[in-house]
C-alpha cells in the first residue's frame, strides 16, 4: 500500500486499453476511497470512466459517472464541469445499449444533459447527436431523422465530437438508409487517413464492408477488412466491429479465418458487459454458422471455451448445432431490446446479418 492512487493511475495508463487497465484503475479508485479526499475520489473516477469506456465496460462508466455527477451537483464550485460534461457524451450514447433501461429514462437523461449544457452555455449539438444515435439503435427511424436534422443544424463548439467521429456518424446514417455509394463517398477523408481519432477509422472500416460488397467493390472491401481487423482484434470495445468482420469473412467464404476469429473472440463475447454488442456478436455467430452449415455441414475441430453451453470434449462441432445454439441465444438477447424499443428492429436484424453472411453464394 506504499503507492498512492495517482501512481497506480500512472501505471494503468502504461497499459493498452482493456480489462487489466480497468482493474488497476478500479484499484486506484478504491485506494482513493479509503484514504483520499473527495477530490481524489472524484479524479480517480474520472480516470475510471475513461478506462472503462475504452474497454467495453459501459456499466462501470455509468456507475462512476453518476457518482461524480452527484458530487458535482452537491458542490459545483469545487469541480470543473468540462471533463464531466465531456464524459456525459459517452454516457448518453451508451444508455440504449442496456435493454433494461426504459425509453422514458433514456429521454429523461437526454433532457437532463440538454439542461446542463444550456446552463453552461455549451452548444447542444452533442445532445442531439446522442439522441440521434440512440433513436437509431432503437429502430425509431422517424425520430432519428428529426434528431439528425437538429443535430447537423446546431453549431459546433469545443464540446462537440471531433471531425472524425462526426464524419463516421454521418457515414453510418447513410448506410442505415441504404445510400451506399454516398456513404462511401462521405467516408473518403476517413478512408484516406485524413480524419482519425480513438475510434475512427476502426468503426468505419467495419461499417463500410457491407456497402462495399453490395456495390461489388471487393478489392476495397478486402483492403479495409485487413486494415480494420488488425486495429480492432485486440480491443474489447470494438466487439460490434469484430462482429461485422466476421460477417464479411463469412460472405467471402474465408472459413478458416472466420473460425479463427470465433475462437479468439467468443470467450470475450461471453463475458461482454455491453448487452447490445454481445447481441451483435451472437447474431453474427448465428449468421456465420448457418451459412457454413449449408456449404460445409460436416463437423469441424474448433477451440471453443469450456464454459460454453454445448462445449464438447472432443472439440468437434457441427455448424448446424452451433447455428441453432447461437440463434436461440441471439433471440433471447434480442427480446428485452424489442420489449423496450416497442418494435422488432433488433430481432429483425438477426436475419439481416445472416443475409450478409450468405451473400457470397
Amino acid at each position, binding site marked *: 500500500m506504499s503507492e498512492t492512487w495517482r501512481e497506480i493511475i500512472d501505471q494503468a495508463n502504461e497499459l*493498452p486499453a482493456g480489462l487489466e487497465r480497468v482493474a488497476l484503475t478500479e484499484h486506484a479508485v478504491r485506494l482513493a476511497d479509503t484514504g483520499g479526499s473527495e477530490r481524489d475520489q472524484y479524479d480517480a473516477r474520472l480516470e475510471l470512466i475513461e478506462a472503462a469506456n475504452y474497454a467495453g465496460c459501459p456499466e462501470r462508466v455509468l*456507475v462512476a459517472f453518476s457518482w461524480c455527477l452527484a458530487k458535482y451537483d452537491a458542490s459545483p464550485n469545487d469541480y470543473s464541469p468540462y471533463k464531466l460534461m465531456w464524459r456525459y457524451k459517452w454516457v448518453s450514447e451508451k444508455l440504449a445499449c442496456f435493454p433494461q433501461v426504459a425509453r422514458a429514462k433514456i429521454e429523461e437523461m437526454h433532457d437532463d444533459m440538454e439542461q446542463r449544457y444550456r446552463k453552461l452555455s455549451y452548444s447542444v449539438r452533442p445532445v442531439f447527436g446522442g439522441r440521434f444515435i440512440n433513436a437509431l439503435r432503437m429502430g425509431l427511424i422517424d425520430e432519428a431523422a428529426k434528431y439528425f436534422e437538429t443535430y447537423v443544424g446546431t453549431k459546433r463548439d469545443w464540446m462537440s465530437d471531433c471531425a472524425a467521429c462526426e464524419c463516421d456518424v454521418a457515414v453510418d446514417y447513410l448506410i442505415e438508409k441504404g445510400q451506399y455509394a454516398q456513404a462511401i463517398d462521405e467516408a473518403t477523408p476517413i478512408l484516406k487517413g485524413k480524419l482519425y481519432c480513438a475510434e475512427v477509422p476502426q468503426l468505419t472500416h467495419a461499417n463500410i464492408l457491407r456497402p462495399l460488397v453490395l456495390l461489388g467493390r471487393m478489392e476495397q472491401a478486402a483492403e479495409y477488412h485487413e486494415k480494420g481487423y488488425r486495429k480492432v482484434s485486440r480491443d474489447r470495445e470494438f466487439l460490434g466491429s469484430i462482429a461485422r468482420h466476421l460477417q464479411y469473412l463469412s460472405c467471402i467464404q474465408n472459413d478458416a479465418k472466420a473460425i479463427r476469429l470465433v475462437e479468439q473472440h467468443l470467450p470475450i463475447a461471453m463475458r461482454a458487459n455491453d448487452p447490445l454488442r454481445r447481441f451483435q456478436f451472437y447474431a453474427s455467430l448465428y449468421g456465420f454458422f448457418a451459412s457454413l452449415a449449408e456449404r460445409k455441414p460436416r463437423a469441424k475441430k474448433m477451440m471453443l471455451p469450456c464454459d460454453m453451453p454445448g462445449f464438447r470434449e472432443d472439440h468437434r462441432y457441427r455448424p448446424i448445432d452451433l447455428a441453432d445454439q447461437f440463434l436461440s441465444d441471439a433471440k433471447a438477447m434480442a427480446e428485452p431490446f424489442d420489449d423496450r424499443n416497442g418494435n422488432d428492429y433488433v430481432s429483425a436484424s438477426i436475419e439481416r446479418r445472416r443475409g450478409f453472411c450468405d451473400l457470397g453464394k
Partner: protein
Amino acid sequence: MSHESNEHHFQVDLRGVIDLLSDHLYSGPQVYIREVLQNAVDAIVARRQLQPDHVGSIRLELVTAEGAPPTLVIHDDGIGLTSDEVHQFLATIGQSSKRDQLTGDDFIGQFGVGLLSGFVVSEEIVVITRSIQPDAATVQWKGRADGTYTLGQLELDAEPGTQVYLRAKPGCQDFFDADFIRETARHFGSHLPIDVQVWSKQDRTLINSVPPWRSHYANEASRTELSLEYGKNAFDIDFLDAIPLRSNAGGVDGIAFILPFSSTMKTQNKHRVYIKDMLLSDSAEGLLPDWAFFVRCVINSTTLRPLASREGLYDDQTLAETRDDLGACLRRYLVELSQQDPNRLQRLIHVHYLPMKALAAEDDEFFKMVIDWLPFETSLGTMTMGEYNERFGTVRYVRTRDRFRQMSSVAAAQKMCVVNGCYTFDTALIEKLPHVTNRDIEFLDANEWTENLDELDLQERETAFEFVRTANVVLQTYGCSAEIKKFQPHNLPALYTTNESADFMRSVDQAKEAGDEMWGGILDAISGQAGASAQSQLCFNLENPVIKKLVQVEDRDLQRRSIETLYVQSLLLGHYPLKDREMNLLGDGLLGWIELCLNQRGSARE
C-alpha cells in the same frame, strides 16, 4: 551580352502554401535541409542513368559575412535543368519534375514540393543550373516568397549541375548555424551512397558513414558484432542481439536490435526507417506486427511509399506484406534460438515475456514452443508454466486481480498454487492449454474455491452448527452468507470473498447513496443481473483460537456483535469501501464493545 529578364508569377498563392507546409506537413523548418539534399540526390541519380560512370558529389556550403545574413549554397553535379525545364517545373507548384522527366524507381519524391521548403527559411531562392544536355546554357532562376520569379541565362560556362542559394530570412539564423547544418545533414543523409560534404568557414566535413545494408561482413559472428556496434552508436543502447531483417515485398534490408530492458505495447514506434538511403523517420509506425515491441529497428527500403510529408510510411498493401515478412524474420530468429541456444532464449523471455506472450496468444506453434518458459504470477510466487506443470499438474487460475487479492495469501498458506490470470494475455494463454497441449486447467470461482479448504469433522460440525446459522441470519442483511472451515494462517479469523457481480454491486450501492432518483433508477436497471448473481461470503476459520471460543458461546447477542465486527474487519482488511450501513456497524459496534467491557468491569468490581 544581354539576358532575358522576365518577371513571372507563380500560379498559386505561395504564402498560403508555405504556411501549409510549415504548419501542417513538415515537423519543423529543419526539414528544408532534407528536401534540398533529396533534390541533389535525385539529380545525380538521373545523371547516372544517362552516364553510368558518373560518380557525383554534393556540397552544402555555409557562407557567412559580417553584417549580412548567412547563405547556404547546395551544390550538386547532377543532371541539371534547361531553361525550359526550369520554367516548366519550378513554376508549377506541386508538380515533381523528376516524375515527368524520368520513369520508374530512380526517383522518389512523388510530391514535388521539395524546393518550396526553402521558402520556410528564406525569402528568396536562387538556382543556378546547367543541364548535361549538349548546348545547354547556364540558367539562373530567382524565386521570391511573394510569388514572383525571374529567369535568365548567364554568361558563365558552368559545369553541369545545380547550385541552390538560400539566404536566411530574419528570425531563421539558427537554421543556418554550421553545427546545425552539419548535424541535420548527417541525421538525414549520412547513409547516402553519394558523398555529402558540409563546408563552413572553420571546417569541411564529410558526413557519410557506411550503413549496415552496404557493409560487408566476414562471417555471421562479425556481422552481429558490427551490427551491435552500429546500434550502440545509433541509439546509445547496449542491445542484447542484432537480427537481420529482410523483406522482398518492401525491398527491405535492415537490422532489428533486441532491447536490453522490457517495454510495453504502447511504446512501439521508435524504428528508424530510410527510404533509398535517405532518412524518412526516427519513429515510423506500422513497420512491425503489434507483438514485436521488444526490438528497435533500422531499415532501408527501396519500395515502401512515404506519406506526403515524407515523415512516415503510407499504410498500404506493400506495408502490410512487409510487416508480415519482418514479423516472420523475428519469429524465425526465436525458433532458431529455441533449438540452438534455449538458455539464451529463456534469458530473453525473462526480460521480454510480454511480447512473447502476445505472440504465443495468437500463434499456436509458437505457443507450444515457449509456453513452459513463460512466467506467471501465482499465490506461491512467480514461476514458469513448466515449473507449475511439474509441481502442481492441473493449472488452477482466477481471472481478475480482485479474486487473486482475496484468496492468494490464504491459498499460499494452504500450499495451494493459484495462477493470477488478470494480466493482459495470461487468461488467454491458460485457456489455450487444454486445446494445444492437452493439459488440464481449472477455473476457480470466487466463492467455490473455499471448498478446497479443510472441512470440519463431525464433532466440530455439531459444535459450530448454531453459530453458522446465527451468522447467516446476521449477515443476510448485508447480502453475505456464512460458512466455516479450517485453514492457515490460523491468526486470520475470517476470510471474505466476493465475485465480480458483488464487487460491481458494491460500487452501484455507493453511487446510489451519492446520487439522485433519476440515476438511482438507471443504476437499478443496469445492475439487475449483477444483483441477482452477486455473492459474497464470510468464511470463518475454526483454526483460529478466538473463533474456536466464539462458536461455543451461548450468548447470542455476544455472538451477533462478534460476527458483525469480524465482518467489518474483513471488509477493511480487503480495502473494500464501506457502505453507510457498514460504517454504522463500525461506529456503533466499537462503541458497543467499549460499553460492554466497561459494564463487565463495573459488575466485576461490585
